[in-house]
């Protein structure tokens, strides 16, 4: 191991750029603690005196950094260990006693970030992720892009040796960058490379604030490897966190939207990430019931209860569409124009966009475009709708709601009929798998921590926000396994049973998530959707080959995951996760699921390998 400079070993004159060693540091810890007690309640200091002071009499800067993370209520630190943030890691383990944040070892930086994604979607706040600024960030990028496209706050700290003089050998140079965040700047909201500890403190708090301000998103801060081993200056303090109030639609816009909605004959609400919080879900119900309008939920979050009578609507028949944080609405707007319907869009996406990656979708020609957070805009909008609605309109609304409810009731009945087809098929139909799960989950406190299979959303009774967290924001493969483990870790303290329907191809990207689940006793039931191929791409290949009138005989050579078949039960077992399968007979599912839920209730993960139909 290449030696670090010890804290009692000052840099050579002319080399030290930070001058942190000036003055005696004997009173630094006490002074710092005194300062911490004065910060806002949200940042109440929870740190203890370090058991061992640094030999130079000072307090490691990384201890102070951990104090900052504590003040931001970071519950965990997800990381694949690396020398460039070793100071922080040591402080987490020895100074903080491995509590708040608790170090969670991940086997790949993509897993670290995707776990943080799942965690944030359950908890509504970020968790600390640390990685090498070079080789670690390079691993983390796809998961970061998923989070970026999904408006999920990720708090990424990247270790880097900024000063060339401090790079002690070849590997240091290989693992250093001049501008580490350049790699992730296209899909992060903000980044910084602080030059001093005071700068780091401000940027660390600022990063949290930016990540949590809608539209939420990932942030990245570089932490200099050497800075972590410096002495905390006596005047170091943690800035007070103040997260801004989310931007809401202005009163004029609210009045105009309400007027259009109240006058509409068939308004439909289109929701993508409209509900950011459980309160947002409740507001969505209030809005729909006030208008008696159907809700089309594009399932990036749980925006509406699935069995609510107003869950569902016909966008093609709407005369006014209210799109809330609405993804790809260009087609909706184009079709609406053709029938002289109006489209109103409320989204915070307009407040922050990057240009390179095209997640902003095609330009939507809407009639009203409001740059505001949808959830924050709903209370005033609901109030204004109520104020404008006359008694006769209320009766018309009631009749409209009854029509929508009847149509949705028929859709649910049709979903049951659809599910019955292939019911006894082997490989197991995804509908059968979903309903076998539901039969044993419905009386538990559950959370569906992946969004791959659509059947649960058609047939399960989702009523609470934590029961559904959407899917990969950028549809990157390799999200589901780690994100579901991260979400399940967040659910653990709430006593919920987390369950995922896990695609096989996705698990093979990041199977190490299973080991993390086992090591930290993450209670999650993972049910494989093992269709033994990358079937999404199979369909593309078929169309491409047939467009050229060429053979389909080699499909399995390019897209199959069989021959040899992957034994996911053994894979899980090899990492300490209880498991069973492979199961191809649907009649064997019930007993396996019962066994799995029993294990999860004991606080451990369990995997059932189910060989399924392609979709």
């Amino acid at each position, binding site marked *: 191991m290449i030696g670090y400079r010890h804290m009692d070993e000052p840099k050579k004159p002319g080399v030290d750029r930070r001058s942190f060693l000036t003055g005696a540091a004997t009173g630094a810890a006490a002074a710092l603690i005194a300062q911490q007690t004065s910060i806002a309640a949200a940042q109440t200091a929870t740190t203890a005196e370090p058991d061992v002071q640094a030999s130079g009499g000072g307090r490691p800067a990384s201890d102070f950094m951990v104090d900052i993370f504590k003040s931001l209520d970071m519950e965990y630190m997800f990381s694949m260990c690396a020398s460039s943030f070793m100071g922080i890691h040591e402080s987490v383990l020895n100074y903080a006693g491995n509590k708040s944040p608790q170090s969670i070892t991940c086997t790949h930086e993509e897993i670290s970030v995707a776990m943080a994604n799942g965690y944030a979607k359950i908890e509504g706040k970020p968790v600390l992720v640390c990685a090498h600024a070079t080789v670690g960030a390079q691993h983390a990028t796809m998961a970061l892009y998923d989070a970026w496209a999904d408006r999920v706050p990720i708090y990424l700290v990247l270790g880097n040796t900024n000063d060339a003089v401090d790079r002690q050998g070849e590997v240091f140079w290989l693992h250093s960058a001049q501008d580490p965040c350049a790699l992730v700047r296209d899909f992060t909201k903000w980044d910084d490379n602080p030059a001093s500890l005071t700068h780091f403190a401000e940027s660390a708090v600022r990063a949290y604030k930016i990540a949590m301000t809608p539209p939420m998103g990932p942030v990245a801060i570089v932490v200099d490897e050497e800075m972590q081993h410096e002495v905390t200056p006596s005047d170091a303090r943690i800035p007070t966190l103040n997260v801004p109030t989310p931007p809401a639609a202005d009163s004029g816009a609210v009045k105009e939207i309400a007027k259009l909605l109240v006058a509409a004959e068939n308004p439909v609400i289109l929701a993508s990430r409209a509900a950011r919080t459980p309160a947002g879900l409740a507001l969505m119900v209030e809005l729909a019931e006030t208008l008696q309008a159907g809700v089309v939920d594009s399932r990036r979050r749980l925006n509406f209860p699935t069995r609510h009578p107003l869950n569902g609507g016909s966008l093609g028949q709407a005369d006014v569409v209210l799109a809330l944080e609405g993804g790809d609405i260009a087609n909706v707007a184009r079709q609406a124009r053709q029938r002289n319907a109006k489209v109103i869009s409320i989204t915070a996406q307009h407040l922050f966009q990057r240009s390179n990656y095209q997640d902003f979708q095609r330009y939507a020609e809407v009639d009203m475009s409001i740059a505001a957070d949808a959830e924050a805009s709903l209370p005033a909008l609901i109030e204004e709708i109520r104020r404008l609605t006359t008694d006769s309109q209320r009766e018309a609304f009631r009749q409209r709601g009854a029509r929508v409810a009847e149509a949705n009731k028929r859709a649910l009945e049709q979903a049951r009929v*659809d599910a019955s087809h292939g019911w006894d098929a082997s490989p197991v139909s995804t509908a059968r798998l979903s309903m076998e799960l539901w039969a044993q989950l419905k009386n538990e406190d559950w959370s569906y921590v992946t969004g791959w299979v659509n059947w649960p959303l058609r047939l399960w009774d989702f009523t609470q926000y934590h029961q559904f967290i959407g899917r990969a924001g950028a549809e990157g493969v390799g999200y589901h396994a780690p994100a579901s483990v991260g979400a399940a870790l967040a659910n653990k303290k709430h006593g919920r049973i987390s369950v995922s329907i896990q695609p096989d191809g996705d698990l093979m990207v990041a199977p190490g998530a299973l080991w993390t689940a086992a090591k930290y006793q993450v209670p999650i039931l993972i049910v494989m959707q093992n269709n033994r191929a990358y079937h999404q791409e199979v369909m593309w290949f078929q169309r491409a080959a*047939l467009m050229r009138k060429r053979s389909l005989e080699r499909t399995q050579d390019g897209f199959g995951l069989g021959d040899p078949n992957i034994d996911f039960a053994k894979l899980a077992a090899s990492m300490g996760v209880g498991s069973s399968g492979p199961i191809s007979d649907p009649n064997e599912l019930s007993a396996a699921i019962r066994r799995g839920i029993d294990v999860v209730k004991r606080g451990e993960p369990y995997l059932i390998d189910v060989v399924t139909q*392609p979709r």
Partner: protein
Amino acid sequence: MKQLLAASALLSLALGTAAQSARTDRAAIANGESAFMRVGCFTCHGTVGHGGAAPRLAPNTLPLPGFTTWVRNGTPGWTPASGMPAFPVSVLSDADLADVRAYLASLPAPPPVAEIPLLAP
């Protein structure tokens, strides 16, 4: 006696033809299932034609002329990104196409929803 022999011969011929026909049906269905899997129909429609990424094909499978038209032409305007692709004869012969249809038509209807407790409201 001659008449009896003639009747017996006719009966044997009839039984033989029926047996041959049954064998042919079974062979057609087996070959149809094999072709259904080989050219990847199951990817979108499920191994028993129950539907998935694409619509259900069984039961109530289209009659052969309509079925053939659909398979040979695909969805109007299909592209490598979406729609049902057209299957040319070079990929799926007329005989195999007919057998695929025979396979789908042979599949039983699912039990009524009311008889599946897990699908109860």
